[in-house]
């Protein structure tokens, strides 16, 4: 644990990060920006997992392992999302959310 820093302060930082992500998710109109906001939200939750593991149950490793899984899932999700965005741009020449109204053909 970090000397002199209580668990509350770290939770404050991660909560702020989480809500910045939600703010971006709602207000941005571009698919890639939405993806960036999702990364922020995921990162905030990963930090929470790790911090709870370190501060409350220091002799266990579950939090660390779950955060490794979350990072792996985030990587897979980003790769898929980027490929979908590129394909969408090829079909309708735009990556704005409002132009995305068809799912197939």
């Amino acid at each position, binding site marked *: 644990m970090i000397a002199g820093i209580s668990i509350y302060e770290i939770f404050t930082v991660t909560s702020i990060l989480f809500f910045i992500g939600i703010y971006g998710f709602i207000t941005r109109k571009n698919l890639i920006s939405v993806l960036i906001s999702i990364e922020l939200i995921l990162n905030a939750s990963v930090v929470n997992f790790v911090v709870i593991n370190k501060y409350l149950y220091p002799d266990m490793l579950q939090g660390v392992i779950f955060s490794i899984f979350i990072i792996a899932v985030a990587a897979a999700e980003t790769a898929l999302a980027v490929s979908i965005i590129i394909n969408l*741009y090829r079909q309708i020449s735009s990556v704005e959310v409002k132009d995305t109204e068809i799912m197939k053909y």
Partner: protein
Amino acid sequence: MEKYIFYILSAIIIVFALASVSSRKMLRSVIYLLFVLCGIAGIYFLIDYNFLAAIQLTVYAGGIVVLIIFSVLLVHHIEMELEMVKMPRKILTVLLCVLGLGVFLYTIYNNDFNVVENYITTNTSDIGTKLLSYDSGGFILPFEVISLLLLASMIGAIVIAKGRKLNDKNNG
């Protein structure tokens, strides 16, 4: 000392996260995201999870950010500015977020966590043993499932990004 490093890191994280969701240039917003991710890796270093910090730097900063930059370069003109939402909606969203943050912080500060004072250092071999053990509490099955998921999503990404050509033969 560590205290001040933590404050500096959290300031970096919050400022750059705000910049990342409010910048009007696409590429800059991605670079600000990179700073946020590096700051989070710094927090992992501070609480002595070196392996996790290395994963964060390689997978996020090395992989995901590069992927997003690729897609930005393929899809956008660099000088193009994003359109923003209208002011009333922005204010409404800010209010909602502050409200949610208030609820979160109220709950967090009213809960007392029984924090264990400790300075244990976790080394990588512990994590590896735990990941690959098949005793009770081991994580071998999720580990295999996650590797399958990565493989499947990579194949799916290739198929989707390749796009038209695969099924265009019928249409000529």
